[in-house]
């Protein structure tokens, strides 16, 4: 897997198609909402098989970038430097989103909540297969025995795992995570990060790439292949830093902080975040 820092838009003769190993490309994406200029000229290529983290000052537009990837928001069409575009390969990858809050439906059981992602929209799973898929996803996050519980009977960390199971049940190719463990205490957060890493490394169900928005430099460096640093609003890409840590990561996850490449990358990111431009 090639991991060089390429953040220029991919220009191919077809115009709208992307490079063969791209899953999604943001090309010159600017975004203005209610006269607020949030994003400016974002060019970002998400490749198959990579874990990308997005960091930046709070409120800068990290979550908005994810919403562009989900097509919940559309980039400005009349930017001075041309229209922004979200470009996919011929077939749009299935995308799943994990929010900062678990966003579980309190009236559904844990199983029901996981099945929710399988029972909505044009691509919904046939009824007869939902239960099996939901239970497999719960098994994956270690909560199968809680299938008949209701969300409020579970702790915050468990709820967040249910939310992850719900997202994974739909078998996304591109997993988008918006500070998924940001509301949890550090211990739980570390456990869940390690679990996520293991899921990511043992992937068998079509998961190709992960994009995670985070506030934590540790999370960004220990988990991802590339870290995208956004500037303050209107956010542009300040830099993209490759993380030179060996893969798979889960084996060395607990003591990754003691390694030199980890510390150097953290230091590099700190400098980038504090730089004025």
């Amino acid at each position, binding site marked *: 897997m090639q991991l060089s820092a390429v953040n220029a838009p991919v220009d191919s003769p077809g115009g709208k198609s992307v490079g063969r190993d791209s899953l999604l490309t943001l090309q010159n994406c600017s975004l203005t909402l209610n006269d607020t200029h949030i994003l400016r000229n974002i060019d970002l290529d998400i490749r198959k098989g990579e874990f990308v983290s997005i960091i930046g000052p709070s409120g800068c537009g990290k979550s908005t970038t994810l919403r562009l990837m989900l097509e919940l928001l559309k980039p400005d069409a009349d930017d001075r430097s041309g229209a922004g575009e979200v470009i996919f390969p011929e077939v749009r990858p299935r995308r799943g989103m994990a929010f900062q809050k678990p*966003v579980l439906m309190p009236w559904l059981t844990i199983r029901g909540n996981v099945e929710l992602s399988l029972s909505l929209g044009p691509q919904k799973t046939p009824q007869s297969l939902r239960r099996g898929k939901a239970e497999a996803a719960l098994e994956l996050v270690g909560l199968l025995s809680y299938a008949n519980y209701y969300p409020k009977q579970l702790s915050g960390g468990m709820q967040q795992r249910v939310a992850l199971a719900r997202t994974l049940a739909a078998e996304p190719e591109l997993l988008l995570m918006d500070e998924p463990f940001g509301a949890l205490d550090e211990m739980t957060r570390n456990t869940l990060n390690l679990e996520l890493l293991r899921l990511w490394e043992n992937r068998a169900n079509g998961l190709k790439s992960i994009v995670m928005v985070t506030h934590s430099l540790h999370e960004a460096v220990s988990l991802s292949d590339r870290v995208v640093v956004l500037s303050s609003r209107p956010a542009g890409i300040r830099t993209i830093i490759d993380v030179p840590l060996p893969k798979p990561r889960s084996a060395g996850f607990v003591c990754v902080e003691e390694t030199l490449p980890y510390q150097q990358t953290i230091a590099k990111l700190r400098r980038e975040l504090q730089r004025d431009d």
Partner: protein
Amino acid sequence: MTDVSKRPRPGILRRYDALLYPLVFISLLLVAWEVSVDIFKIPAYMLPAPSDVLDAMDSDLINHTWVTLQETLWGFLIANIAGFFVAVMFVHFRPVELSLFPVAIALKTTPLVALAPLLVVWLGTGMASKVAASALICFFPVLINSVKGLRSIDAESDELFRTYQASRQEIFWKLRLPASLPYVMSALKISSSLAVVGAIVGEFVGANAGLGYVVLVSSYHLDTDVMFSAIFAAAFIGLAFFWILEAIDRHFIFWQQEGAD
């Protein structure tokens, strides 16, 4: 060792506290009432003793109660179905809300007592005018609470559903509707007691049966014991109605969140 008296009592005793305490209190009140009527020689047309009120509860009262009960239930049912339906329209079609909301407010601010005679003129002295009065008074709280409930979904849930490209129908049935239930349930509880008020106001204006009619007629004849029996019957309808809804609420809306009322 901990003080034994400060330990929580076994569950079986506590479970019936909510029933036991009011029952004991009400019994004491009734005894005090009975005794003081006797001691102070209060004339029966002013305040009949509870035993006299009990005597006045005959099969006639049951028939009248049945009439009021039916009016109440029909009014409640119609108001709730209509109120919820209009709420769904409000939430999905902005022009409907913009045009109908002021009308709904006007309806709410018009005193029912002022409308009741009109209802009798239009619908006659039978049950229909009382059902209408009852439905009118229930309609507004149901509408407001249902709209509030249907709008109570948070931005994240909405985004979650949109991420899966859920259709409008799916968003309605799997998100809006269940999310609105705690609010709708409080609306039902509020309107349950209002429904009785509506029916009785209707009966005051023009009727030949029902508890409101009994109260009115007995006041002409100073049959205060009969009046009391009708008042108690009306109160009982409201209470029983509320209790049933409360039980349904607790059983089915188990996820009930704070702030839904």
